[in-house]
């Protein structure tokens, strides 16, 4: 797990520095821009920790999009949420590396529950199973890392996942870039929020296991066009179709 942690750190650092645009310009220097919110000491609505989490998650997403090395935790598309939120919290709260690594084990535990009962495949259940699952795993990990009980941790996961149910997978041109990268950035903030709520004593009315089952059910009911095929949603907006054209992908037949 130490190696996993190192690769996460590298991806964040590389992602923050890299100004290059990816092919079709869908990933660029957004991580850098978000991080600057901290340096300039600008007025922000979010806490510095949350801004950092967002910037780190975006950095990982952009690095991934540019074919950089990342940890697919639980997937590559949703790989920014967990390192973003955990490493930002570790730094801002000056926690040990060991604490962060333990948190990664907690995230994995939640991931195992999801993998067993459902899927991480967006082709099967949409983005709720990628970025959604990642926010649940991160929320539980953060809760454990800050000294919450296991009950609070799993409750945080339920709160996080519940709010990502129904999220479809509709990447422009089928590239893991738009909306994926920024979904990771805001997903990291989402995880922080779920953990705060859980620590405050807010309980998810529906227990985590059942939320996972609901995710599975929603995945079954979801149209194939919204499951990693790039045939609906954002992928077929005017902007999305322009990207398809640029990529020389076949035209989508109108129904």
């Amino acid at each position: 797990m130490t190696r996993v942690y190192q690769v996460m750190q590298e991806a964040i650092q590389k992602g923050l520095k890299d100004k290059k645009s990816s092919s079709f310009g869908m990933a660029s220097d957004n991580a850098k821009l978000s991080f600057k919110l901290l340096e300039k000491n600008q007025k922000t609505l979010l806490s510095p920790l949350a801004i950092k989490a967002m910037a780190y998650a975006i950095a990982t997403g952009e690095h991934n999009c540019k074919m950089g090395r990342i940890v697919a935790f639980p997937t590559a598309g949703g790989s920014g949420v967990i390192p973003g939120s955990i490493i930002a919290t570790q730094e801002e709260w000056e926690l040990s590396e060991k604490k962060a690594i333990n948190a990664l084990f907690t995230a994995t535990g939640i991931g195992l529950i999801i993998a067993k009962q459902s899927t991480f495949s967006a082709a099967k259940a949409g983005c709720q199973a990628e970025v959604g699952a990642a926010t649940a795993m991160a929320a539980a990990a953060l809760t454990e890392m800050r000294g919450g009980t296991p009950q609070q941790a799993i409750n945080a996961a339920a709160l996080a996942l519940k709010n990502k149910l129904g999220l479809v997978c509709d990447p422009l041109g089928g590239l893991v870039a738009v909306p994926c990268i920024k979904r990771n950035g805001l997903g990291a903030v989402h995880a922080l929020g779920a953990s705060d709520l859980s620590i405050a004593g807010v309980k998810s009315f529906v227990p985590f296991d059942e939320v996972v089952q609901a995710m599975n059910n929603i995945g079954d009911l979801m149209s194939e066009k919204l499951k990693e095929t790039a045939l609906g949603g954002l992928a077929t907006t005017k902007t999305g179709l322009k990207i398809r054209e640029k990529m020389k992908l076949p035209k989508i037949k109108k129904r």
Partner: protein
Amino acid sequence: MNYTTKNTNTDSYSIFEIAGPIMIGPSSSHTAGACKIGQMARALFHKQPGKVTFILHGSFAEVYQGHATDKALVAGIIRLKTGDPKIKHSFELAAKKGIEFQFKKGNLGPEYHPNTAKIIMEKNGRPNMTVIGSSIGGGKSKIVKIDDFPVDLNIQAGFKTIVVWHDNNKTHLTQLCNKIEKNGNNIHNIQTTTISKEAISIINTDGPDFTLSEIKKLEKQKGIKEIRSLIKLQQ
């Protein structure tokens, strides 16, 4: 609400399949998972193929270019790991090795996972081999068909897996298993698929690694045609 708990998933996951794999982007199912399908296909074919045809199904067919699925599949065929930055250049590397490859889109049928590829490997002087593999999410993959045999083959950490082509004769398989156990490997499970007189068995063992010479020795056993080891992929 009238849905019940449905366990869609009988696959087992190890910790580092959740917290991983460490990989080159952009997509775990379309890049890392595809690379693993390629690796498994190559391990089954064993030799470097001269020509490879990839038939892409479902979501693989729709979005393969954006996710570099094509590069990742070829990378697997030339045995690159999921975290190897050389994946980006797999086309050139494969061409240098003299491997011809092409991609086609095809509908393999609704029974297959949306992220599936059919791989046809050819080499002079050998029968062709067709392998169908699915990338089932988070970078995990499995082979679901070898030639006409439906199988369920994946790389499970902690196990040493061998694939055996043999005749449909229980005694021959039992004899082979006895030899494997004599080597000090425990047999965890065996999955056998038979089609008339022929069979493929996937044997999961734990214990020491098989060496190539051990495999060769086991291959000499009556009724056994070929044995492939996936151990290199499990390290």
